[in-house]
């Protein structure tokens, strides 16, 4: 890499740092200003006034609920996901690829869509209720459980368990059986042999998946907003209430700081285990051969498959069914057709087309911005690491990459809103979503860059390629498919995001997730399903393309 390019890269990186941190600074500035507003000029009194706006009980209550629901949801997700990870890692069976593909759901299906699916399936009038009434003869047997603590936990666990299946199976596949077998030859029974020969290698992977799910549940917003109302609110929801209904910036500031500090602990766990997991993957390298399940193993796989289809795939399928089911008066036969779509396209206010267009326009812009930023950041991090692994710059970029995991999306959204002179909501939306999405792009590209064998580049150099040419033909050529994949991923994230639009309280622009949220809130479930199906197809298709690009590469 020539010095001039490095200088340009670092210059751009400074802009990215400013781009990512400025909304935080803007929010801090405004929140502190408004928090101290109206106080006397005596500094002590201003501070007292600031503190008076912060109800400690609200913070403690929401913190306790956030931690409790995140921990329980994470534990349940791990328990559901672990058997799946084992089956996928070790056995060849029908549905194995489908089980792996479910990992895409948390990434390409926005939470609002999954919420809708759960309402339609587990709700009092849902499909499960119909099945129970068929079995027991009355709807009264089933009261529904969604709007409770365990309902919330279940939605979180089922939304996130595919992450456990995907991440842990990828690790488990590479852990050789020899250590477990060695323990057996030394007299250990199956459980002890597993504890000695497999579990120590698996634990960092479990911790990593659990850390990631914990963070997702910790920052859960829409799900808690919909299901948690009666039992409690998370910090993220409290921030939303404080911003929208109380305009209490002092409370928002403190809540977001508490949230960030807790999230940093989770991130610390993630980064510490990440190294060990990557080392395990690198050291063991090749995946172990899959085998056909036998006897009890086959039975367990079948039971697990039924469990997943019934509890997880069922809700998702109900979206497709409900999208085409035309609501009819009680007693009339159920009719299927395109009426729900028609109502969204040609009915009163007909919001669908406009919502699709604004989603494509705004999310497309945010994804492009996130991709460019991510490319620059990943290259800068890659070259900075090559020069000095322990340097400040690589550390700073690493920290920045975790920003969306540690900071409330409300802070990004409002930060940008405060920064734009004419308070244009849509530009704040694009910028906030870009800040949230670029670290995902950067992390994916950086992983691809790191995976390139340095000897290939050295081989190019020995064959006469200049440093720039070697970079163009090896690094750049190798990561191009990853760029396309990461851009698709960024689009999936931004197109499905409902948090930022909700936080911004957007009135003038309607995106698909926002439309979906409003239709759900208005109990227009069938139309919500039609809109949800389109959103799901859109993000799912982009995600599918991403996977294909990776396959081809």
């Amino acid at each position, binding site marked *: 890499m020539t010095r001039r390019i490095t200088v340009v890269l670092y210059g751009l990186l400074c802009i990215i740092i400013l781009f990512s941190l400025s909304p935080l600074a803007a929010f801090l500035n405004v929140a502190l200003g408004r928090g101290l507003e109206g106080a006397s000029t005596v500094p002590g009194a201003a501070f007292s006034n600031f503190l008076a706006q912060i109800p400690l009980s609200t913070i403690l209550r929401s913190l306790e609920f956030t931690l409790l629901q995140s921990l329980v949801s994470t534990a349940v997700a791990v328990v559901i996901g672990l058997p799946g990870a084992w089956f996928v890692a070790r056995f060849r069976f029908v549905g194995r690829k489908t089980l792996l593909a479910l990992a895409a759901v948390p990434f390409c299906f926005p939470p609002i869509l999954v919420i809708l699916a759960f309402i339609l399936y587990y709700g009092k009038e849902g499909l499960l209720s119909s099945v129970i009434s068929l079995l027991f003869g009355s709807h009264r047997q089933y009261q529904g459980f969604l709007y409770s603590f365990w309902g919330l936990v279940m939605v979180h666990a089922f939304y996130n368990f595919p992450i456990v299946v995907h991440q842990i199976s990828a690790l488990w596949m590479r852990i*050789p059986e*020899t*250590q477990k*077998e*060695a*323990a*057996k*030859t*030394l*007299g*250990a*029974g199956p459980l*002890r*042999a597993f504890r*000695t*020969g497999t579990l*120590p290698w698996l634990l960092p992977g479990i911790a990593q998946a659990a850390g990631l799910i914990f963070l997702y549940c910790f920052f859960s917003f829409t799900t808690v907003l919909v299901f948690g109302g009666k039992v409690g609110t998370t910090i993220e929801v409290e921030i939303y209430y404080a911003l929208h209904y109380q305009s209490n910036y002092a409370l928002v500031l403190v809540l977001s700081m508490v949230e960030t500090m807790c999230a940093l602990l989770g991130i610390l766990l993630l980064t510490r285990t990440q190294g060990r997991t990557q080392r395990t993957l690198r050291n063991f390298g090749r995946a172990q051969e899959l085998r056909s399940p036998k006897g009890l193993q086959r039975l367990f796989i079948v039971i697990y498959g039924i469990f997943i289809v019934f509890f997880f795939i069922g809700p998702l399928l109900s979206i497709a069914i409900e999208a085409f089911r035309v609501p009819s008066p009680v007693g009339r036969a159920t009719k299927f057709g395109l009426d729900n779509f028609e109502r969204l396209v040609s009915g009163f206010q007909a919001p669908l087309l406009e919502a699709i267009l604004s989603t494509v326009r705004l999310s497309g812009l945010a994804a492009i911005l996130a991709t460019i930023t991510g490319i620059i950041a990943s290259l800068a991090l890659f070259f900075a690491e090559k020069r000095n692994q322990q340097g400040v710059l690589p550390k700073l970029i690493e920290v920045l990459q975790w920003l969306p995991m540690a900071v409330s999306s409300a802070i990004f959204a409002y930060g940008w809103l405060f920064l734009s002179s004419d308070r244009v909501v849509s530009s704040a939306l694009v910028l906030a979503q870009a800040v949230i999405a670029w670290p995902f792009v950067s992390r994916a590209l950086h992983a691809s860059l790191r995976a390139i064998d340095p000897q290939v580049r050295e081989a190019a150099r020995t064959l006469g390629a200049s440093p720039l040419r070697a970079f163009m033909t090896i690094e750049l050529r190798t990561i191009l498919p990853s760029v396309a994949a990461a851009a698709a991923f960024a689009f999936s994230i931004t197109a499905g995001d409902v948090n930022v639009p909700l936080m911004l309280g957007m009135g003038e622009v309607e995106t698909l997730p926002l439309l979906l949220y409003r239709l759900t809130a208005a109990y227009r479930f069938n139309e919500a399903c039609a809109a949800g199906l389109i959103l799901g197809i859109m993000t799912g298709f982009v995600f599918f393309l991403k996977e294909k690009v990776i396959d081809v590469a």
Partner: protein
Amino acid sequence: MSLELQHVRVMRGSFSLEADFSLQSGKVLVILGPSGCGKTTLLRAIAGLERIQRGQIILDGVRIDRLPTEKRHIGFVFQDLALFEQMRVKDNIGYSLKVHHEDKQQIQERTALLAHRFKIEHLLNRYPSELSGGERQRVAFARSLASSPSLMLLDEPLSALDAPLRREMRRFIRLQLAEGHLTAIHVTHDVEEAVDLADEIIVMRDGAVVGYGTMEELEQRPASGWLARFMNLGLVLPVTNIVAGRASDTLEVETHAGTVLSIPNRASLDISRLSKDKTCLYVPLAATDISESHSDRNIRARILRKIHSASHISKLVLMITGIENYYFEFPLGSHHTEILQEGKEIEISVDTERCQLLPEEPFALDDVVQPVSG
């Protein structure tokens, strides 16, 4: 008998393995064969890590093939050693004793004894990641011996070591096996290692046992041309014609190189049914010599490479005239090496009394050859 495998069959997908042999107590059997021939699978089947479809495995008079691995009382040293990286060396060695609920004092004493025997006392508090390749080998070996197994199984444990360390560890393993009067099966694809360690050798190919015996027995009757070539036991020459000799118990064999040799008919051969393509002439190394005079009955060869060393075995790498892609390694001994120069044509004289016809591939002549016993 210490170990007996009776008509054992193991299936892995489309791969099938058959084995039927026995091993006396205190002997070291080496299973030798190219990659993918099934030697590791056979070892794993004995340990219970691979299910057998048919047959019986009997260890010290007890049928063990129905027992789970942990009940077979077998020591196994894996190719990658499979040390428990999260445990210190002492905990690795004491693992099996702990599993068998031995008391703490006994575990400590046994661990100390093995550590002393394997010269790893100073490593007991270290983790496997802090050990060198040779030290890891010793720990793996000590661990597998801790609970005094009835049978030791060694699955290419030396393959990852560099040449000098491999040689040293070979001596060490042989010494330990001999001192402990241990019955052991060692798997390798290295002929030199097999010769060095074995009391008996089994040669495997494509899931079948294609050779079995001591090294001397294999040299005398290698059972196939493939085996003789694989182990470099002697010259293996394709034949173009076989006719009955003038004497009733001899055969006139014409080789590809055009040489006609009169060899004894040791087996009852039905020449009319003998396929030349499936037959080769085996000349044991001990029956060959470099000839200084010309003869039509000599085999002509060209010296490709001359390796002359005081510390290593001096040898010639020869290309036999008339045969493509066959390079024969000929130990030099006390010959006048100054006249043997690279590129020079030489002649090899053959003691025809010790030559024999063999199937080119294992079992190819089973229907026409009945080996004469003794």
